[in-house]
Every structure is written in structure tokens, then in C-alpha cells.
């Protein structure tokens, strides 16, 4: 039998994602891929995978899965998220650290309050076919992932390898996310000249809030309406991930991984690539502020983010096995209140 994880409950929207389907936007295929590419790459690094390998993206509420492989190594990344492991060696592993599970172990993923998404990487990757060069799931056209859709109960997440490699578990040294209070940085354009001066100022001065209307395609923002000074119906052009498009209603929509490749509304500004992961973690109700930077600065921030990521991966440290055992026995004896409540 193929080694894997059986899905006992799927979570709200759990999909296979990698860094996206590159090179097909000209035929209308969205890039897709992880909302928080940083989280995906770190999770992969923790299990020794290439950083762009496919992993599970977990939105809003986490799945519960049962190990159907001799052993498997996994790592979760997402602020405040936890892996609750039920089995012979029951324990709770916090995000930012790898762990190895045994056949029959049940793994319950719980998201923290700080992030809309988290990533579960599996050592060796998930054995789904690549479609147009990517394992990313694009539900609207049923491309990629597990049968082109989100996980369902009784699915099996097929693993590429049937047992975990021999090595220490790894841990990321610091909290991987930047401060959530910092404004999201944008570059104005490509159609900022379609907007009134007051609205350009409002984008930077006002506080917005992520509305309930948010999914992998984009998030509608509550806040001041951004008003056009000329028409809002432009001849379609391309849409970049992170572009903030404003339809006739004046309510801005930030476009995310599954956005359409082209569109006919003016884009007032575009979120810089270094801040896309932070944007992807925003949950409905979260406050959002924007700050503008020059393009050259944005390009430099992209490079800086890459250097920071390389530093973080270089600083991953082995977890001493005694420590893990200690933690395991603590939880086993239920000395820490609260952590076992999810297991009843």
C-alpha cells in the first residue's frame, strides 16, 4: 500500500501547494501556490526538502490525519500553530520544529490566532502528479494537488517515501514572522493615475480591515472607499499578485495567489513581494495599513528578504532528543493544563 496519511477530518480548506505554476499565465492559468511562500519554504527546510517542494496549505481550521506509513517526518510552520500527536508517544509539537510520527499516530493540526494559514511539510514530499510543472491546487479549474481539489475526509495524502530518514529533528531559532503591526508596503501603480488625490492619500493614511470576503483569489478590504477620477472600466491588462484593484464600488480588493491572470479594473498599487507572505497570513477582521515605497527600494527589499531566509535556514538547529522525551513525558502526565483538551 502507498505510504501516506489518512484524512480523518479535512479542515476548512487544506490544499497541496508549492511555489506556483510558473509560465502559463499567458494562457489564462493563475500562478496559484502558497499564500505565504515564506512559511512553505521554511516548513520544507525543516524536513530537509528543497524549499519549493509541495506541502499542505492549511487555512483557518486544521485537519486531523492518521499516519499510514512506517514512520514519517513532518514540520508545521505558522505563528501559534501546533501539531498534537496522539499515539504511543503523545506530545504537542509547536510550529517551527520537525517531528517524526509512527504508523497509527494521529496528528491534529491547530492554527494559532495570529495567522490565517499554516504549512505542513512532509519529508520527501507529497506523491501527486505535477500538472503544468506544479503540484499546486487550483480548485476553479481542478488543476494539480489531490484530484484538483481541497482535501476531503477519507482521502489519503500519498507520501513519496515510506519512512523518515535517520537524523535529528530541526528547529527554527526565532519566530519566523515579522511584526504584524508594521504596515504592508506597496508600490503605486500601474493605474494610480485613475484615482483622486484624496484616495491615493487615503490608501496610506487610513486603516483598512480584511473583510469576510477573503479567499485564495483575493481579499476585499473594509475602509474608506477609493474613488476614481476617471472611469473604472479599463481595457483588461495583466494582474500581478498583490495588486490592489478597485472596482466601481470603490472597495479595494487585494489579489492573492489564485487571482485571474487579467482584469479590467484599475490597480491603485501593488504589494511588494517581500510583504506578500505577511499579507497571505491576514485573517478576516485583521487591521491593515499600507505604506508606499519606491520601486528600487522594493526590489532591494525582495533581495533582503531572500538573504534573511537563507540566514534563517542556515541557523536551523538540531533538537536534542532528551528534550523531546522530556516534553513528551510532561504531556503524557498531563502536567501542563490545556494541551490535552483537544484529544478527548
Amino acid at each position, binding site marked *: 500500500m502507498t505510504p501516506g496519511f489518512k484524512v480523518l477530518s479535512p479542515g476548512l480548506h487544506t490544499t497541496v501547494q508549492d511555489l506556483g505554476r*510558473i*509560465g*502559463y*499565465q*499567458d*494562457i*489564462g*492559468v493563475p500562478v496559484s501556490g502558497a499564500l505565504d511562500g515564506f512559511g512553505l519554504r521554511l516548513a520544507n527546510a525543516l524536513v530537509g526538502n528543497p524549499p519549493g517542494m509541495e506541502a499542505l496549505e492549511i487555512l483557518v481550521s486544521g485537519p486531523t490525519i492518521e499516519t499510514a506509513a512506517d514512520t514519517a517526518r513532518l514540520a508545521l510552520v505558522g505563528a501559534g500553530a501546533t501539531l498534537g500527536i496522539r499515539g504511543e508517544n503523545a506530545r504537542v509539537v509547536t510550529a517551527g520544529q520537525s517531528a517524526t510520527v509512527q504508523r497509527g499516530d494521529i496528528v491534529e493540526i491547530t492554527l494559532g490566532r495570529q495567522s490565517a494559514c499554516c504549512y505542513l511539510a512532509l519529508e520527501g514530499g507529497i506523491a501527486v502528479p505535477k*500538472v*503544468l510543472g506544479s503540484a499546486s491546487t487550483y480548485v*476553479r*479549474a481542478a*488543476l494539480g494537488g489531490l484530484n484538483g481539489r481541497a482535501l476531503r475526509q477519507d482521502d489519503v495524502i500519498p507520501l513519496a517515501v515510506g519512512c523518515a530518514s535517520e537524523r535529528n529533528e530541526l528547529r527554527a531559532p526565532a519566530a519566523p514572522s515579522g511584526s504584524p503591526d508594521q504596515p504592508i508596503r*506597496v*508600490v503605486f*501603480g*500601474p493605474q494610480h493615475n485613475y484615482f483622486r488625490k484624496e484616495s491615493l492619500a487615503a490608501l496610506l493614511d487610513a486603516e483598512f480591515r480584511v473583510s469576510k470576503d477573503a479567499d485564495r483569489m483575493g481579499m476585499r478590504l473594509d475602509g474608506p472607499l477609493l474613488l476614481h477620477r476617471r472611469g473604472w472600466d*479599463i*481595457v*483588461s*491588462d*495583466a*494582474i*500581478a*499578485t*498583490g*495588486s490592489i484593484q478597485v472596482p466601481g464600488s470603490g472597495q479595494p480588493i487585494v489579489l492573492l495567489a489564485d487571482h*485571474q*491572470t*487579467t*482584469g479590467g479594473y484599475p*490597480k491603485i498599487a*501593488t*504589494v*511588494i*513581494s517581500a510583504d506578500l507572505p505577511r499579507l497571505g497570513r491576514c485573517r478576516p477582521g485583521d487591521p491593515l495599513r499600507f505604506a508606499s515605497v519606491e*520601486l*528600487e527600494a*522594493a*526590489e532591494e*527589499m*525582495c*533581495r533582503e528578504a*531572500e538573504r534573511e531566509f537563507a540566514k534563517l535556514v542556515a541557523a536551523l538547529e538540531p533538537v536534542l532528543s532528551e528534550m523531546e522525551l522530556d516534553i513528551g513525558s510532561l504531556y503524557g502526565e498531563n502536567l501542563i493544563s490545556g494541551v490535552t483538551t483537544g484529544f478527548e
Partner: protein
Amino acid sequence: MKVRFLSAGDRALVVEFGDRVDRELSKRVLHLDAIIRSNPPAGIVETVPTFRSLAVYYNALVTSRAELQRAIEPLLDSGDNPRAGARLWHVPVCYEGEFAPDLAQVARLTGLMPNDVVALHSGTRFHVYMLGFLPGFPYMGDLPPQLALPRRADPRLRVPAGSISIATSLTAIYPYESPGGWHLIGATPIRMFDPERPKPALFAPGDAVRFQPIDPTAFASIRRAVETRSYEVESAPLAL
């Protein structure tokens, strides 16, 4: 109109030729796209041609907008040879009954007889301006002016896959069932997008398309052949 270079964040440079749906603009967009593809400057990730602009996606770890713009500017004046490999497609369409739920309304709104709408639509050779909205969704023009209508006031939540639609100066084919606001005047049994094919989208920007009326019996038999992957849409190299 002067060519403008615009940034869409730090990963896309938009080369904008104008702000209209226009064959001359489209020619320039597709020409630049073809030149860049034949010899891409370092750091380009992909290009997306639209009606009026070419989006050039790049990797800022390898290049910068300034460097790319310097590489692209000299390419703008290198003639306007048509894209190599463009094709003329003959698409079977059933314009009857349930396949054409908006045909009667389109006829009423345009003051034409339904047969005239069909004759005008199937008598025009269309240019594929761009693909977008959904995988394989072609924006084609231009409609004869008598058929120009704004989008429907009440968009449908479910437009069936294969629907042939018109709105403004354009016509399109829905590759997947999806919401949509265009007028549905027919349906084709062919598959517009198939990730298993070497060329997943049937059409490419710059191709030409003609629609051939078929009856419901022919629709059903072509659909069966499409399902067993034994149907090939008729096409020929595009003579320019």
C-alpha cells in the same frame, strides 16, 4: 500613443502600447512578446500579452526593472513581423435551442433576426487578442458593429462550459463552467483547455478563429469524439 513602462510591484514590468481594443495595438504587443520569447533577457520569468500591453514578469534577484527596460526599449522598433506558428481555427458551434439561451434576446436588442445574428457571427474571422479570466479563455474580436451589446445587467452564476458568448466588441468561449455576464448565443462541443495536451490551450494570442454552424446531432457526435480524445479541431497555418 507613446509606449509607457509601468511597474506592477517589484515582479512585473508592464509595457503599455495604448488603452484601447485595437488590432494595431495587438500586433505591436504580440510582436514584442514574440521577440522577447525568442531571446529572453536574463531574469524574465514569463510574459503575458493583453489587448494593449505586455506584462513582463521578472525575478528581482536576477535583474531589475531598470535593467529590463534598457533591454526592452531597443526591441520596440524592430519591425512588426507576425508571430510564427499562428493558426486559423474552424470551431463547430451549435446556435440552436438550449445551446443558445440568449440568441432571441440578442436578436431583439440588436433589431436583427436570429438567423442574421448567426450569419454575422459565423461569417466573421476573429482575431485572438489574449487569453485570460479562466485557463484557455480566449478574448476574440472584432464583432460586426451590429452585434455590439453591453454585458448583461444580470450576470449568470453558472455559464456552461463550451458556451459561445458575445459582449461589447468581443466574442469568447467559456472553457469551464463559471459565472459570467456575456450573452450566450451558441455552444461548442470542443475542449478549449486540457492540461494533458502538449499545448494545453487550444488557441494562442494572434491566432484567427472562424465559427461553423452545426446542428444538435453533429454537436452530440463531436462531443462523443472529444470525450474519447479522437476529435481534432480543424485548423491551418494562418496565411497573412
